[in-house]
């Protein structure tokens, strides 16, 4: 009897979880991560084809759909004192002495893009006409762009030129120094 009465009067204790220390710690962590937050810019890559080694194979992957009638494009770039583009000459094929791309610096790069794009469009049209004549259906593959670069050219300019060539539709770009033996 006495036991049951004691049980009946025991007070109800409401469980109380102190969340204040947890909140303090969370704010400290938040402050730490906010202060150390340093989002890295998105990095990407540009594929490089190494120039042909004397007596060795090219590093370009073999292309079974290579169009024999489309010759590689050679872009010769001279640099000014600041390492920017002084002049660009573009040639296609072994017998082509090349044509100067007008402008310097950024203008020259922009004009190079236009020139490369126009050449690719012409090559595509010729390829389509040739296929029609001989009754073939082979896919068109853009020719390789060989860059012959001045040695004092800044790296960012080389990347910009490769970028222009890629944008114009040439995925295979082979940068080399103009003095290298190819």
């Amino acid at each position, binding site marked *: 009897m006495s036991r049951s009465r004691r049980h009946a009067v025991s007070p109800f204790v409401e469980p109380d979880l102190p969340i204040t220390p947890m*909140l303090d710690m969370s704010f400290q962590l*938040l402050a730490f*991560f906010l202060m150390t937050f340093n989002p890295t810019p998105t*990095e990407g*890559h540009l594929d*490089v084809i190494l120039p042909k080694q004397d007596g060795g194979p090219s590093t370009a992957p073999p292309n079974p759909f290579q169009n024999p009638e489309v010759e590689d494009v050679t872009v010769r770039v001279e640099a000014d004192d600041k390492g920017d583009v002084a002049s660009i000459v573009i040639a296609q094929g072994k017998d082509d002495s090349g044509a100067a791309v007008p402008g310097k610096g950024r203008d020259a790069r922009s004009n190079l893009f236009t020139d490369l794009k126009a050449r690719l469009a012409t090559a595509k049209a010729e390829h389509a006409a040739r296929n029609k004549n001989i009754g073939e259906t082979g896919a068109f593959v853009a020719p390789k762009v060989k860059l012959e670069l001045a*040695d004092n050219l*800044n790296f960012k*300019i080389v990347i910009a030129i*490769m970028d222009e060539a890629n944008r114009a539709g040439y995925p295979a770009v082979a940068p080399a120094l103009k003095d290298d033996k190819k």
Partner: protein
Amino acid sequence: MSHGSVEKCEPNMTPMLDLVLQLVMFFMLCANFIAEDVNATIKLPTALQARPLDKAEDRVIFLNVDVKGDVLPNTRGIDRPLTNRVQVAGYMKNQAAFDQELKRRAAEKGKPEPIGSLVVIRAHEDCKYAKISDIMLGCREAGFPRIQFRAIVGISK
């Protein structure tokens, strides 16, 4: 003389705590303490056509090149800057030995031969191209023909 009952007046902290913990989680996931073997001091050039690195690559060797054209020390065996093609070729030949070991093990287990390591050149944007070319030729000498340039995705300057 009855007094009104005393009510506790406490702000409800639970939603706030939820939010804070979610923010903590976000920043913890975004924190990039040791990402790749990259050097944050190098200012990369920008290119629109730069594509993300292929996740399928087995092994990538990062070469961080400063504005002078020296390959900077890393956690993979470069303890002092490599200043010329011979030094780069020497370092890369050591790396090639690792590749050979991987190929040998694959052959022992009858697995297809792994393709060689990819070399990613992270060069400062104002570095002269002659130095980059030297590094590339050093890599080729050591048997690494697969090379990529690193750039930040964006409009070229």
